[in-house]
């Protein structure tokens, strides 16, 4: 037969559209719809109205999606022609992402931080140093596109953790990343730093996406499919050209390691965390970590589970390097946001320790850890945004000197959060670390746990150093001001702090929830 006949045959064949169970996709669809609606609102509503409608819309959408997630609990299916998997881990992580997004919206919507309003710039397009930039400094306006961008990003995150197909996963990766690149450049103060952060994040993100996509290609080359389940089946069959699958594991791993900020793919983290508006940093630190880890767990458990003895050594190496880099480099940071960024890197390493256990307990521990870390980190960044000078946030550590005397409540809360990040008992940081390390020991990864404990000890040093600085140094004469009016930031910080305490004292309900989700496992 000639080539034309082939084409003809293809044209005459009927294409049956895949049946889609919209109800099971409802959380995703709700958030996606809200994002589109947000774009419309931004196009048609007045400036002042937007600042009210947008956060309400976004927050309402997240709550509605959260309800949908709750209603869906127990659902377990592969949907949309194998593209999306809805199972207990997916729902657990979607719910987590939504809660963190909700808290982040509170931070973005804050308008009482200084005279001119919140953390988001009035007009991102004005070049710093040009004519309009002086007027912009005092403008009370904000780029309300931030809300739909956030909601789009959340859509991407939720799809990322639900993808059962490497291509869908790639699309989700881009949906979650592109809005974040933009959001990183929207800081009201220190515009140049913010724009630089956005640019770096974009370039390096694109670079890592390329690795990911290359890995997807190799996976297809090996298995003839991009569906996770089929790849897993192919891994079991003998006689395939298995160099492709090893390349695929490596390259997909690189793409995902970049997203979670694991070393040596972490170098964007401090620059981006520092330059981004603090609410966006909080959102990235909590939300992106959950999404990227969700995807990482699914890919490595489902698709590459059969190869775990081969990728384990690499994972160990990455985990160790990440913990060491995070803990050691945080020691010499002078900027509080950079310090928290390195702390985020170290925590990514601890999470990888849980993954290294490669068992159900590891899955449970990782999911629990993600929740505890997200709450603590959002609260920590919320507190950071409250300490300000006339030039925005007082992010230099020396400016926090003696804050315990001038604002004991704030300093006390921040100390508590730092202790949680350090993993001191009676905070969620301890229970989270315990869950992860225990799983790793049971998964015969004891040396990794030893390294993790040493790194925890090193990390404790720089957390406690901040506490010492706040409580045992004399306050600066011209010290920063702690803003006292911002109710929304207080609310977010309060929720995060209370969650940190409650999960430290009574972690069992959430552990049970994570356990149920983990033991039911990923659907294939």
């Amino acid at each position, binding site marked *: 037969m000639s080539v034309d006949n082939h084409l003809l045959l293809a044209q005459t064949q009927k294409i049956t559209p895949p049946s889609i169970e919209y109800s099971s996709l409802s959380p995703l669809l709700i958030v996606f719809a809200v994002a589109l609606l947000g774009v419309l609102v931004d196009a048609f509503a007045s400036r002042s109205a937007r600042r009210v409608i947008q956060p309400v819309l976004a927050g309402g959408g997240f709550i509605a999606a959260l309800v949908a997630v709750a209603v869906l609990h127990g659902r377990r299916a592969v949907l949309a022609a194998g593209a999306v998997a809805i199972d207990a881990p997916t729902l657990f992580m979607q719910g987590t992402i939504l809660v963190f997004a909700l808290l982040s919206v509170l931070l973005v919507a804050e308008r009482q931080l200084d005279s001119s309003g919140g953390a988001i710039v009035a007009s991102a397009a004005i070049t710093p140093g040009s004519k309009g930039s002086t007027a912009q400094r005092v403008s009370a306006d904000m780029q309300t596109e931030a809300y739909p961008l956030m909601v789009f990003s959340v859509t991407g995150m939720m799809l990322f953790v639900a993808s059962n197909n490497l291509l869908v996963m790639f699309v989700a990766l881009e949906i979650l990343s592109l809005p974040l690149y933009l959001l990183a450049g929207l800081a009201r103060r220190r515009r140049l730093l913010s724009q630089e952060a956005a640019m770096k994040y974009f370039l390096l993100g694109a670079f890592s996406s390329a690795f990911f996509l290359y890995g997807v290609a190799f996976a297809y080359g090996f298995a003839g499919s991009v569906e996770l389940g089929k790849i897993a089946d192919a891994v079991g069959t003998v006689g395939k050209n298995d160099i492709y699958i090893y390349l695929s*594991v490596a390259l997909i791993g690189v793409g995902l390691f970049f997203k979670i900020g694991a070393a040596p793919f972490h*170098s964007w983290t401090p620059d981006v965390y520092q330059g981004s508006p603090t609410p966006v940093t909080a959102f990235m630190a909590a939300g992106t970590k959950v999404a990227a880890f969700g995807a990482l767990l699914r890919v490595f458990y489902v698709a590459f589970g059969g190869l775990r003895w081969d990728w384990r050594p690499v994972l160990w190496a990455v985990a160790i390097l990440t913990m060491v880099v995070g803990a050691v480099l945080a020691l010499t940071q002078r900027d509080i946001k950079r310090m928290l960024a390195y702390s985020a890197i170290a925590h990514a390493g601890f999470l990888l320790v849980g993954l290294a256990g490669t068992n159900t307990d590891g899955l449970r521990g990782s999911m629990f850890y993600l929740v505890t870390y997200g709450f603590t980190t959002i609260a920590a960044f919320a507190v950071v945004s409250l300490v300000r000078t006339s030039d925005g946030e007082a992010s230099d550590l020396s400016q926090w000197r003696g804050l315990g005397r001038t604002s004991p409540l704030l300093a006390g809360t921040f100390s508590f959060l730092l202790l949680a990040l350090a993993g001191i008992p009676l905070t969620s940081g301890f229970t989270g670390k315990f869950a992860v390390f225990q799983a790793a020991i049971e998964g015969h990864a004891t040396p990794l746990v030893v390294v993790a404990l040493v790194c925890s000890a090193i990390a404790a040093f720089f957390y406690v150093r901040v506490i010492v600085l706040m409580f045992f140094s004399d306050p600066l004469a011209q010290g920063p001001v702690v803003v006292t009016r911002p109710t929304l930031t207080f609310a977010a910080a309060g929720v995060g702090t209370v969650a940190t305490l409650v999960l430290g004292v009574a972690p069992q309900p959430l552990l049970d929830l994570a356990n149920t989700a983990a033991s039911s496992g990923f659907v294939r």
Partner: protein
Amino acid sequence: MTDHPLHYAAASGVFSLSWLLIVLPLAGAAVLLLGGRRTDRVGHIVGTIAAASSFVLGVVLFAALLGRDGDDRALSQHLFSWIPVNGFQVDAGLLVDQLSIVFVLLITGVGTLIHIYSIGYMAHDPARRKFFAHMNLFLASMLLLVLGNNFLSLYAGWELVGLSSYLLIKFWEDRPAAATAANKAFYMNRVGDVGLALAIMFMFATVGSTGFADVFGAAAGGVIGYGTVTAIALLLLLGACGKSGQFPLQAWLPDAMEGPTPISALIHAATMVTAGVYLIVRAAPIFNETQAARTVVVIIGAITILLGCVIGCAYDDIKKVLAYSTVSQIGYMFLAVGLGPAGYALGIMHLLAHGFFKAGLFLGAGSVIHAMDDDQDMRRYGGLWRYMPITWVTFGLGYLAIIGFPGLSGFFTKDRIIETAFDKGGTSGYLLGAIALLGAGITAFYMTRLFLMTFHGKARWSSEDPEGSQGQPVRHPHESSASMTGPMIVLAIGSTFAGGLFVLGHSLQDWLEPVAGEGVEGVHTFSPLVLTLLTLVVTIGGFAAAYLRYQLRPVESVAPADSEVTLVTVAARHDLFANTFNETVAMRPGQYLTRFLVWLDLVGVDGLVRGGAAGIGGLSGRMRRLQTGFVRSYALSMLGGAVLVVGALLLVRAG
């Protein structure tokens, strides 16, 4: 000992209320401590009612036990799961049996009396409420100690008792001596507590449980090896020595007299210091298995009897003499319980009788001290009988009871101990009997000395104005108020009759038999009548010596200097150098050890940490330079990382 009740019946009916025994005083303490100043005015009432209601409940339970069959009088009540860890299950539960109920009656009964006494004694103290709160806390702790049905509950009570004792010794914390004494008591008790804790760990390690039923079952069943059972018994003994002020841990008890006198009566005479005896009798199935440990108990008891007596002769402080008398009387109890099944009941019997007369003596001493404007030096007393008749009579009955005047408590209980010591047979029996007998004589001497110097002879004080007093202290002694004399009278009645009540018809011995085992009627070395006469002669000898020295000859109002008295007296005045011994053997080496450890910590550990921190800091500073801020170098590092990951995985594949 196969007849030991290893399985306790479940508590039902009125016995299911036994937890209230502990909770009532605990609630009293909680109300008074949490209520703060608002409860100042009613504090003493609340505290006394809490103690009294616990006593009433104790009496009810006792009556209910009387109504049950003899071998069905041990009731265990499960309260809640205390430590529900996998592989380490400890349930909090109570055990009401023949032994614990007599302790409950002693603790709450004497406790209530002393609460009432304290209403008067502490009437002018601004912190009276706190005092009653701490006393209630003590009662609750002590009840937990005797009522727990496992060693861990006992240990919790044991530690709480130590805490409340500490709080009460330092009640007048603005006095440096009181604060020091409290610390000393606490530290020395810790030494003993470590023994108890280790014993419990041994039990758990070998038996897998700390419940009385399990541990005793295993001990009686021979499951535990001889070496282990001896180790457990000796460690228990160490704990008992600490709490009961036995040699070599006796030095804290006399110092503890810095606390208010009712506390000396309640804690450091009648109840807490007898916890050691309780522990040994409770652990009778363990001690029954090891002759070696019992021998050690006996030796410690014998040493302590003499040590307490001898030192008691040398002091002029009325409370110190009574304190050493307590040490020596508990020595008798240890001697008795160390004799094994023959002596357990005797030890308890002497303990109960001692609870009455020693509490009475202390309360009497408190009454005297009150009357003498807080002066405790007997050399400045004398001739007080005319001024405080009730105190004189009640104190006198207590005094007669302790020296073993025929018909009074001590006569019955101490004589039986001396008799049983002789009956042990062999050289050791003679030796122990002789020591116990000698102790009785010396007891008669120093107690007579105390009694005469206080109540009789010429007054060595003056009621005149300072001008007419001729250098003697000015005092206006008077009888104490009814709330103080009332308890003294009750205790005096108890001192008089309790001993006879216990001994006649073997009533207490029969009662305790299921717990303590059957007292074997061994071969008597001497016939009881001969021994009683012998004891009487020795006692009269002690009395006569004291009478000659302190009644017929005048007493100096200032103690003679060390150079004028014998070497023995000097030694006794210095507590037979127990403190010097402790300092040399324990404190100094301890200090050197801590100094060495501090040095090691500074140079070794800190050096390591500082060096490590500096190293990591330097590493951090160098690694930081990799973070250049240039996207190109970031991308390069990512590329490098990717190459490494790919290379590593390919390497794995090749391998």
